[in-house]
């Protein structure tokens, strides 16, 4: 689309050369001499923790604790009980008009409950749903964070944002303890748009009082699917 605003691009190109030139001059002036960026990056000391010393069960408990601390509701469920748990959760919340991200594991959808599946709905249409159900890429225990990407089962970013209620399924096998462990996973799949979610939408802009749900979902329910029974034993 460069040709649509050719003049802008031209001015910008001149500024590009100017700015890069200034940076090189400035770094030389400040005595930040040449070097190899990749080598020097690799040499940066990283003495912080990459992993946690906690056992598997403690990590899951930490995740639950941190999510609850941020006003999310969390429930553990065995793999075979997911559909029933989904139904129970929706009943508790009194939500009937629900949207699901395309590609959600079929076995996790309760029978007799009609989910609409997002197939490129307009945002006005998404806004008319009472809630949405998605899966997740991983979860970080120490920070109480769920990570979503634009992939099947998790959908595009708007579906987990516009409705008032988000029901998110997290596989216990995809729970990591620390942020560095999460980034290791994400580094292998960086092309997808990625969203970190830590609790429902919140603000503290008014007298530092934490208020739920300013613009995003006001309610976040997490079903922790125990799919790695062997590991957690």
């Amino acid at each position, binding site marked *: 689309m460069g040709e649509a605003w050719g003049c802008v691009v031209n001015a910008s190109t001149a500024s590009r050369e100017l700015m890069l030139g200034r940076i090189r001059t*400035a770094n030389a002036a*400040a005595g930040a001499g040449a070097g190899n960026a990749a080598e020097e990056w690799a040499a940066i000391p990283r003495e912080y923790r990459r992993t946690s010393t906690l056992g598997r069960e403690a990590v899951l408990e930490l995740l639950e604790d941190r999510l609850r601390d941020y006003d999310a509701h969390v429930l553990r469920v065995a793999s075979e009980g997911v559909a029933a748990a989904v139904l129970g959760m929706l009943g508790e919340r009194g939500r009937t008009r629900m949207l699901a991200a395309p590609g959600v594991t079929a076995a996790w959808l309760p029978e007799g409950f009609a989910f609409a599946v997002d197939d490129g709905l307009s*945002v006005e249409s998404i806004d008319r749903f009472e809630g949405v159900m998605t899966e997740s890429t991983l979860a970080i225990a120490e920070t109480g964070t769920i990570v979503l990407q634009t992939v099947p089962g998790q959908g595009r*970013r708007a579906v987990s944002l516009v409705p008032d209620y988000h029901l998110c399924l997290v596989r216990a096998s995809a729970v990591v303890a620390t942020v560095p462990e999460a980034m290791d996973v994400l580094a292998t799949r960086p092309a997808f748009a990625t969203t*970190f979610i*830590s609790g429902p939408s919140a603000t503290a802009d008014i007298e530092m009082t934490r208020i739920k749900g300013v613009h995003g979902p006001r309610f976040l329910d997490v079903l922790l699917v125990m799919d790695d029974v062997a590991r957690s034993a």
Partner: protein
Amino acid sequence: MSGVALDPKTAPTFPMAAKVLVGDTQMRKNVRHATDIIQAKRARVVGEMPDWQELRETGRRVREHTMKFLDVYLEEFERKCTAAGGVVHWAKDADEARQIVIGLVKASGSHEVIKIKSMTTEEIQLNKALEGAGITPYETDLAELIIQLGGDQPSHIVVPALHKNRQQIREIFKREMNLPNLGDTPQDLADAARLFLRKKFLTVKTGVSGANFLIAETGGVCVVESEGNGRMCLTLPETLITIAGIDKVVPRLADLEVLLQLLPRSATGERMNPYNSIWNGVDPRGVDGPKAFHIVLMDNARTKVLEDSEGRQTLNCIRCGACQNACPVYRQTGGHAYGSVYAGPIGAILTPQLQEMHYAQTLPYASSLCGACYEVCPVKINIPEVLVHLRNRVVEQKGFFDPEAAAMKTVGMIFRSERRFRAAQRFGRMAETPLVDKDGWIGWLPGLLGGWTQVRDLREMPKETFRDWWEKRGGAS
């Protein structure tokens, strides 16, 4: 302050603005309340991290490394972002950045934009420029909305409306949203904002954002926020325009494992803020997010800062605002006294440098040099060191004939000689006599010295100096 942009070129000097603002007891109460709460939260969640100092050290090293190879990483970012379908623009100064954004908004066919809170767009007074071009900007962050509707200015990097309490916010919303019966709980106010902005989110076709990090390795952009308004602006419009200082780049995605631990804990005292978004260009399948993505990489004197071997660490800042919350000066004056959108200790070193030392020269003096800002800085920017360095530059710039420099030289000359020192003491005792009140206090000094007594009283000099006392007792050998 209402309606007038915080522009270092026109703002009153810090001592003048501060003198007025310390008289606003409501503002000071609001600022103290907010900063007390954030500081307590920060201390708690930082205390949870056994490796906090190691994270800080790596954070510092990553930022220093980035600045050393800034050209390399900006070019890499440009290459990767372009490959992902983004359009990269370069802006040497604020004016060029504004013109690029206005041109892009017009080309998107929109007369209104939804905006995510962004200090960079505040820095270049983008809203005013958009309005001048017939484009209506809607701030969507709750605090920014309060400021926009109130005709106010931000006073904190992270919590820009912390100088307002709920009653004041309620009055603004009642008036501007036409809600005469609005309640006064924080929840009532947030609900009003949700309703007010929802329609804008769903209908406005162009979004404008800042950026927390640009990832050279992937061409990705990261925005950190809490309310979801950021996600709305980033994903719902057809066109997204992001504007970022060139200092926002980080080498690799993996570096976020450090910065995303340091930033939320330092900024809002949370283990992780509710939402982080990372995206690369546009979705090739066209199903997720905007159809067009533009990013404006802005210099605006950052390369000048880079030139200065001591001042350049200022560019390492990740805009967490922890230094503001910890600063005893900021906590008394609030943010508006700084005459810039960047307030507090970081503003005191960033603003004069971004102005290439032509304006805001009193800001390096707006500090007690107590070091609290350095202590809490997640990337270990030695703010006191830079403050002193900038004070030196200010004096150098004022030159030989500056009265303050001349006075200091005179004092130095006096201190070098015992005879001159004794004479000065005698002279001082004589000269002060008409200024001393009956209780022995001096409330006003003439001329240049008046700056000191504007906000302080001074004790009269003792009748007898220590030397005289010592000599009288035969102490002299």
